[in-house]
């Protein structure tokens, strides 16, 4: 990100917004697909996240890190949506809108069986482990930053990260054993 991009964003500069959008659009969408396990929901939350950035651009702090801001907002939108879905579960089930039943799009684009199994492992992880694993191990945010983003302690981040990594390690170990057999 060129220096001064956040400052230009704070001034409502459309070209600066384009830069941020191009830099993070795919990453944010991929993160949301893995987090929500629902392509359509990921698309909606992605749109809402960018709308929020546009609405709040002029109020950003000068030292805002765009990536951390975007991923924090995206994750919080998912949490809000889950609360809403929990309240309306009966209606969603009646409409058969309770969740995806088909293969994740990330499984479809996976290069090999290990990657497909890893994507399935993400889907099977409890959300609290999945989000930490995604933010730290996939997106590369530091554990202290993730603790701040999620409003949890550093110890909780480390514990959830460890559980998530263990699940992925089991997938990799299982594939390794299968190949040797």
């Amino acid at each position, binding site marked *: 990100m060129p220096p001064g991009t956040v400052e230009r964003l704070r001034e409502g500069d459309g070209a600066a917004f384009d830069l941020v959008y191009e830099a993070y659009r795919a990453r944010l969408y991929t993160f949301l697909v893995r987090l929500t396990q629902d392509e359509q929901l990921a698309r909606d939350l992605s749109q809402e996240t960018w709308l929020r950035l546009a*609405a709040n651009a002029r109020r950003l702090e000068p030292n805002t890190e765009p990536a951390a801001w975007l991923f924090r907002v995206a994750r919080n939108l998912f949490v809000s949506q889950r609360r809403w879905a929990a309240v309306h579960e009966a209606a969603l089930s009646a409409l058969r809108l309770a969740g995806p039943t088909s293969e994740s799009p990330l499984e479809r684009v996976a290069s090999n069986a290990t990657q497909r199994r890893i994507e399935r492992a993400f889907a099977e992880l409890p959300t609290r482990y999945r989000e930490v694993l995604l933010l730290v191990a*996939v997106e590369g945010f530091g554990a202290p930053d993730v603790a701040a983003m999620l409003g949890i302690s550093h110890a909780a981040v480390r514990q959830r990260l460890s559980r998530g990594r263990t699940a992925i390690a089991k997938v990799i170990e299982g594939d390794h054993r299968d190949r040797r057999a």
Partner: protein
Amino acid sequence: MTGAHDTDRVAQELAELPALDLEPLAARQQLVRAKKRLAGRSLTSSNFEPAILVALATAQLLWAVWRVLELGAGHFG
């Protein structure tokens, strides 16, 4: 708990996972909507909205004036 070797393997596998992107049209639409918000424009505004609002306001004003005149004529007439 995963050991250091496992952590490296996990990190390597996760780093190689593919990414997804929106289709170009969907990505373009998403950007356009967001930049409208950035410019402070309503997402549903049209080019005719200001003219419609002015016309409505004028009509309301004329009606109010007519009512006042009508009431005044009735009072003094």
